[in-house]
């Protein structure tokens, strides 16, 4: 059978929370309103605490009714998150949160849907659902806590662990090549891809804000420290001096530059479509990259994502990509809504009778 393509009427750019009921004018919620009574049970020093605090602190800013916010997680340390956020929530099963959230988001435009997942949950067992959620562009925000280790199962390497990593399951060192989650997301047609750090609340909050505003799947990778099984994985990004040398803050419309005051560096275009880091002093004649998260072509964003590596010599953070594309759930609902509108509204018993009768009936008297 041949297939045909039907042109879809594409809606304009809308906010990610546009259809979600807002609090009445003049009312606001506080961090406390989003803090569930449950005792938080992460290990002392876990980076998840910082992210939880940032999310609870940021939620009131959305101005949404909290009963219309839903947080869905998979399995892993970070996936306990919904228990601590006083909204609707579901702690589901390993890797499947994006699929469950897809069903919820597609059927409920009036909900702000958040997915909390980890590097093992999202990129290993749930890899398929993650890439397909991003490909479809379902309106949801995915917070991917990346600590480069399996914590809840007590210390095996994860799909983001560096090659050579010695863990309980890799005593001779891991030979598994890791994923770069940002590169993966960009390759999976994601419309919003960002990276931030558990330890930088201001940056984390700014990224959350942009992610929530985005209509479609927002993937936010959060580098997060596991103090028990992979302590210090991101320490080089927490030391003030080292951070200056390594952290590349992507700011839309700005040249991509970073470095210590006495050792400024810039990111310039490189032959073959990539980018490279050069000392600012040596950049004469080179094209310094001006970050454009809204660029339709994801090539440059992908090149920027490749600056990162196991050594974390240069770690870009911020919004790599934020482009408008019709969301799957909007399109799905549009088809249902227009079919109903064309038929004159919700179906009656008689409409159902006509459906099940079909076109070929006979009467026995």
């Amino acid at each position, binding site marked *: 059978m041949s297939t045909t393509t039907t042109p879809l009427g594409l809606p304009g750019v809308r906010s990610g929370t546009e259809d979600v*009921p807002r609090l009445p004018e003049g009312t606001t919620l506080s961090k406390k309103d989003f803090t*569930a009574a*449950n005792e938080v049970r992460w290990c002392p020093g876990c980076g998840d605490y910082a992210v939880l605090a940032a999310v609870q602190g940021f939620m009131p800013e959305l101005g949404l009714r909290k*009963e*219309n916010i*839903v947080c*869905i997680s998979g*399995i892993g340390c970070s996936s306990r998150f*919904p*228990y601590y956020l*006083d*909204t*609707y*929530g*579901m*702690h*589901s*099963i*390993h890797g*499947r949160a994006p*699929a*469950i*959230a*897809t*069903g*919820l*988001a*597609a*059927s*409920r435009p*009036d*909900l702000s849907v958040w997915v909390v997942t980890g590097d093992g949950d999202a990129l290993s067992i749930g890899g*398929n*659902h993650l890439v*397909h959620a991003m490909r479809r562009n379902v309106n949801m925000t995915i917070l991917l806590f990346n600590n480069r280790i399996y914590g809840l199962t007590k210390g095996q390497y994860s799909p983001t662990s560096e090659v050579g990593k010695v863990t309980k399951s890799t005593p001779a060192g891991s030979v598994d090549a890791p994923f770069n989650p940002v590169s993966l997301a960009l390759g999976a047609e994601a419309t919003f891809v960002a990276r931030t750090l558990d330890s930088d609340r201001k940056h984390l909050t700014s990224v959350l804000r942009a992610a929530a505003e985005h209509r479609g799947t927002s993937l936010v990778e959060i580098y997060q420290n596991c103090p028990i099984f992979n302590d210090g994985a991101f320490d080089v990004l927490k030391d003030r001096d080292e951070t200056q040398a390594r952290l590349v803050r992507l700011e839309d419309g700005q040249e991509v530059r970073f470095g210590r005051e006495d050792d400024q560096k810039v990111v310039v275009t490189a032959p073959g479509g990539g980018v490279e880091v050069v000392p600012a002093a040596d950049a004469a004649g080179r094209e310094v990259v001006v970050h454009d998260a809204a660029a339709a072509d994801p090539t440059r964003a992908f090149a920027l994502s490749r600056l990162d590596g196991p050594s974390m010599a240069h770690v870009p953070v911020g919004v790599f990509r934020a482009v408008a594309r019709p969301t799957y759930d909007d399109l*799905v*609902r549009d*088809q*249902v809504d227009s*079919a*109903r509108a*064309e*038929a004159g509204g*919700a*179906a009656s*018993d*008689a*409409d*159902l*009778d006509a*459906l*099940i*009768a*079909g076109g*070929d*009936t*006979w*009467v*026995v*008297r």
Partner: protein
Amino acid sequence: MRLESPTPDAPTAPRVEDGAPAPSAPGSTPVQKVAGVVIRFAGDSGDGMQLTGDRFTAETASLGNALATLPNFPAEIRAPQGTLPGVSSFQLQFADHVVLTPGDAPDVLVAMNPAALRANIADLPRGGVIIADADEFTKRSLQKVGYTVSPLEDGSLESYQVHALPLTSMTVEALKDSGLSRKDSERAKNMFALGMLSWLYDRPTEATERFLETKFAKKPQIRDANLTAFRAGWAFGETTEGFAVRYQVAPAEHPAGTYRNITGSTALAYGLATAAHKAGLPLVLGSYPITPASDILHALSGMKRFGVTTLQAEDEIAGVGIALGASFGGSLGVTTTSGPGLALKAETIGLAVMLELPLVVVDVQRGGPSTGLPTKTEQADLLQAMYGRNGESPLPVVAASSPTDCFTAAMEAVRIAVTYRTPVILLSDGYLANGSEPWALPSVADLPAIDPAQATGPNGAGDDGRPAFRPYLRDPETLARPWAVPGTPGLEHRIGGLEKADVTGEISYEPENHERMTGLRQAKVDGVAVPPLEVDDPVAPDGTRARVLVLGWGSTYGPIAAAVRDARAEGLQVARAHLRHLNPFPPGLGDALRSYDRVVLPEMNGGQLALLLRARYLVDVQSHGRVRGRPFSAGELLDVVRDAVAALPDHDSAAASPAAGAVAESPQEARR
């Protein structure tokens, strides 16, 4: 000659009801009235046999005959042309009386090529009619299937009534002015055959003409070619002298009502949509294509106007995840699959058991294990449905018994899922999915409503005495927990796969609580209200009752009912019961099992229901399990019934012998 006929008939095909053939208009060929016929259309996968069968069925249905169909096709979309693996067939039984199966064996075999003849001839009883496309019996085609000499010419078919007709060349001749190439013209030969068969059995043609006009509306040349071939086939029948008689099968006695013909998968899709409508819930289907379940996805995807949303997922796991997410959001979440997919969904179904949310999981069973027999039927997922999850994770299981019953069973699955906040597995199978039969249309307004009763406010008090929401506080009657949907103010709560504390739904690792919750989940499923078992056990004139019970579940309904009817016609006293509810079992089942000397259970698996019944009721249920990828024949089950009666310890063989004596001459016997 029909196995379903009330009394054994002479084994001639077809059965003559009104004595000698009488001339009738139009045409000069005399017309015989017959009670019923079984036709099998067989050809290459690319020959359009399924379409031909569908159209003949539609014509037959609109005439008011009782009917049942059995499509049978290979898993390969186009196996090598002309080979045995590429043979596709469609069997149809139609009659002027109640039809319970597609027929054990055909009366008429339409063979579009040598492969179709070779693959099906063993099923055709001697004396049966063969209509073969002589053009296709070429040296090369014959060699492909191992014939050295054409069976149409070597006398090997002498005991059949053979009509070797040049169907292909007659089709090409009829289309010589169509502008189509020879190759394209040949493709319309199935419509030529359909036209001829429609003439032979006096079927109305308007619906097929309408169908072709609609189907090929955008391809006028193809439309006209098919219409021309169809009419040419009819005209050939009318003018040829090759057929001594044509046949009429009178309409069956159906209860008054409006009828249509429907396949199980379509009926199942309609049942789901109707139940959602009666519950006032949007239906969200998450599904991944899999044979033989995909037709339900196809049907539901065309029902957007009825508030049905279908999401084709990236895999089976996502399909059920999407459904569960939608249920969490207050929709009726449904996923459809077959055995391999059910295996993949197991963990998510277990989550639904823990979350206690409505979810309907449809398993259209096929031959297994693994990929097994994708296009063939089986009932071997029963234990997977019952137990195929980690931990103690009971859920209700409902099975459909016929194509039209798929509608009712789907509504029942939805009722239980919504009322009890539980995943429900609805078992269909390949036979029900693709088979069809006439359906007396229900009136949607008259169908019972389903009350989702979603939570709107607090249902208890917190430790401080103020109103609070208790997500796992149960309805005392149903043990169902509240369905509190996101967007409802004040009921914010978290659920998950970790064990829940009773009432509060908080995470709990307490030993006593886990045992209590395990018991509550079991008690909830055990307490699902299902109608008591009905046993069909007519009391004999002398007041005695049967000592043998034939029990079935799912799609074995038709052949079991036919076999029991035939056994009774022989004078054997046999009781029959059929299960819709596999979990919980209906009230009265244990007592019924214990009250017969012998319980026989035919099922298309290795004895799975028998295992459950023996474990549950300590009754020595005799399993008759077969896994051949096709439904039981009524004749085979009649033997099973006879054997069961004969094996009764103090069976009075003299009493049954007259009937048994008659049986030896019966067509059923001759047919095997």
